[in-house]
């Protein structure tokens, strides 16, 4: 068993410094607090013993090999924008940042792909593709995320309805295994039935199986026209009921999101970003991409007519980049707005079949309210991934908040399961949702997860205590 892990000593520090560079290694108190946690400190704050910024796969391999030989836990860190408490040193050890490995290679036009190192920012990858007239569709709300982080967590985002998830765009991966070996998973080919699809298993493994050192991503021709529709409704229920109606139309939307007026008010009040539609207690935001204006006009007209036929008060058309920008800026400001408007947040990231969205949304609000929590459901209702945001008011004690959120989450996950959903749609398990996982997927599935983890990392040194938890260390 790996526990207890070896504590880092001077000899370890010296070795890592020699294998990388002295000015890229920080130890103990020198390590900035931001590396103790991700975007959700609620899911754990853990100081690393050593923090190193690596610059190439050879360094990654050297650090991993040393850690493997010496039984030191390692956590790979990208931009730290995760929402599951995933990129944290739960058992101390080494935090290895790949943010200096941020090269983006020229677009490969013949293969329609782009290759990047894991530390490249998602926005920069998107921009590099766009500069060549191509399009990298995955578009999670967090634009300052790293591409490596996106791949290793299988990031989703708003455009999943039409284009799918990050996994759908990863052609091949170069990665370092926990023992330090450098491996390639698949290659720049369109199809591949060679053995198990390990590449697809790595994507979404939350940094527990290997460390990415390079990813090659599929690109699409950029859509030439786009329009965002805002459909105001009197109630959230009507809004949710509209989702399947939009999906029934013969046009595939790029994104479907909903927002309640209360949430819009929070963003307007705290971030001074004004929403261009004042009507309605809840709004459904539907985006269409098309390759011709005619196709776009047909989609917009069909969706607007369907909205009006189903109780929408009107349908507003954000048909220019500026107009769409005012809509999406408010949607994109939700997390920041809620952080400014509450003492703490807890989030439920379930995904339910699209046919059950309305049922989930209606019931979720009641559940959280029954435990005395302010709740704001919002999210990607086009793919059934509803973010149920729970907000802590200043009047709640630590104990009250903890027990109320725990009780709410337990019920919400049970509800999701009952509706045929899953525990997490896109934020992952990390550390934050670990306690609910076994109950949700069952013991046989956990056994499979453990077997997979051991196949890659029998010493349990890579991001231990995330997604799967083996025996707890005696100290706990």
């Amino acid at each position: 068993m790996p526990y207890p892990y070896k504590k880092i000593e001077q000899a370890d520090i010296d070795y890592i410094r020699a294998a990388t560079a002295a000015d890229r290694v920080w130890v103990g108190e020198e390590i900035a607090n931001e590396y103790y946690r991700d975007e959700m400190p609620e899911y754990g704050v853990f100081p690393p013993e050593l923090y190193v910024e690596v610059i190439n796969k050879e360094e990654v391999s050297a650090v991993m090999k040393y850690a493997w030989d010496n039984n030191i836990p390692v956590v790979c860190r990208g931009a730290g924008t995760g929402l599951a408490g995933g990129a944290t040193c739960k058992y101390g050890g080494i935090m290895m940042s790949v943010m200096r490995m941020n090269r983006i290679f020229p677009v490969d036009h013949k293969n329609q792909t782009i290759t990047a190192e894991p530390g490249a920012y998602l926005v920069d990858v998107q921009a590099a593709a766009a500069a060549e007239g191509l399009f990298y569709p995955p578009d999670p709300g967090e634009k300052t995320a790293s591409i490596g982080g996106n791949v290793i967590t299988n990031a989703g985002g708003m455009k999943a309805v039409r284009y799918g998830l990050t996994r759908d765009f990863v052609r091949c991966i170069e990665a370092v295994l926990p023992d330090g070996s450098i491996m390639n998973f698949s290659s720049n080919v369109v199809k591949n039935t060679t053995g198990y699809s390990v590449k697809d298993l790595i994507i979404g493994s939350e940094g527990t199986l290997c460390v990415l050192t390079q990813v090659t991503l599929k690109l699409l021709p950029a859509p030439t026209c786009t329009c965002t529709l805002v459909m105001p409704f009197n109630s959230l229920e009507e809004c949710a009921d509209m989702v399947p109606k939009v999906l029934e139309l013969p046009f595939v939307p790029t994104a479907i999101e909903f927002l309640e007026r209360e949430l819009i008010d929070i963003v307007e009040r705290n971030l001074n970003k004004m929403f261009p539609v004042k009507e309605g207690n809840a709004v459904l935001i539907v985006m269409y991409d098309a390759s011709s204006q005619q196709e776009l006009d047909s989609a917009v007209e069909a969706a607007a007519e369907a909205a009006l036929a189903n109780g929408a008060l009107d349908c507003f058309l954000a048909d220019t980049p500026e107009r769409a920008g005012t809509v999406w800026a408010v949607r994109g400001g939700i997390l920041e707005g809620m952080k400014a408007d509450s003492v703490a947040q807890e989030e439920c990231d379930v995904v339910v079949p699209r046919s059950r969205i309305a049922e989930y949304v209606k019931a979720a609000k009641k559940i959280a309210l029954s435990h005395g929590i302010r709740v704001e459901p919002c999210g990607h209702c086009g793919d059934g991934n509803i973010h149920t945001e729970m907000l802590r008011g200043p009047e709640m004690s630590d104990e009250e908040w903890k027990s109320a959120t725990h009780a709410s989450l337990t019920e919400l996950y049970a509800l999701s399961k009952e509706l045929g959903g899953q525990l997490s749609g896109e934020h992952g398990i990390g550390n934050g949702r670990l306690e609910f996982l076994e109950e949700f997927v069952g013991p046989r599935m956990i056994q499979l997860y453990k077997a997979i983890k051991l196949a890659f990392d029998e010493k349990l040194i890579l991001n231990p205590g995330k997604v799967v938890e083996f025996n707890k260390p005696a100290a706990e």
Partner: protein
Amino acid sequence: MKIVVCMKQVPAGTKVDIDPETGAMKRMSGDTRTNPYDLFALETALALREKTGGTVTVLTMGPPQAETMMKDAYAMGADDAVILSDRKFAGADVLATSYALSQAIHVLGDADLIICGRQTTDGDTAQVGPAIAEHMHIPHAAWVAEILDADNTAIRVRQDLVSVSQVSEIPYPCLITVDKDICVPRLPSYLLKKQTAGKPVRIMGFSNMPDQDLSRYGLVGSPTAVERMFAPPEIEKQVRLEGSADEKTERLFEILTRKKII
């Protein structure tokens, strides 16, 4: 209350074709869009109408293709739309443009309040609005950043004028030009778009102008001689700061200070 909003269709983006012979912008080429500043003007007008009642008329000078922009204004809630279009108006500078627009406003029976965007993204002079007011002998406030109050007799506005903010109460009739960020313009409504699909956009020409002196309009009425016109080079650049948080902060402070931003 009668509000007139002046709008202009401008080239979309920075890719502008210049006629090498005349140095003038080729308006028919490429994609067009509503001058973004004018949408703030229209929103300001529509919000005032909700408060005080009345009508909002949008007015533009340009080719008949401007109808697309005017239909869009209908879908945002404008009551009436007029395009001032005539070959005799072509090639107009600030003086001739503002004169023609002031004449058109007279034809429309004048207005209590005229609202323009602060400037256009193609001409960039920010002078047409104030010049209309001068031709009409009415007071104006340019670069209005906030409407503080308005009723059926006067409007109270705050202007941000580089180093000072000025609050003014101006009785009607008057003209204001509004800054971007004064509001978030509403989106066009599908319902209004359908309702106004058959609603005509009025076209007005030289023959409708009260002043029939041709030397006041178009190229003839424009004392401005354009020597050369070109699209400015794109100057957006990215600087990446490396180092520790302290080093980066220090470096950022140094750059911003050198550029006199702080």
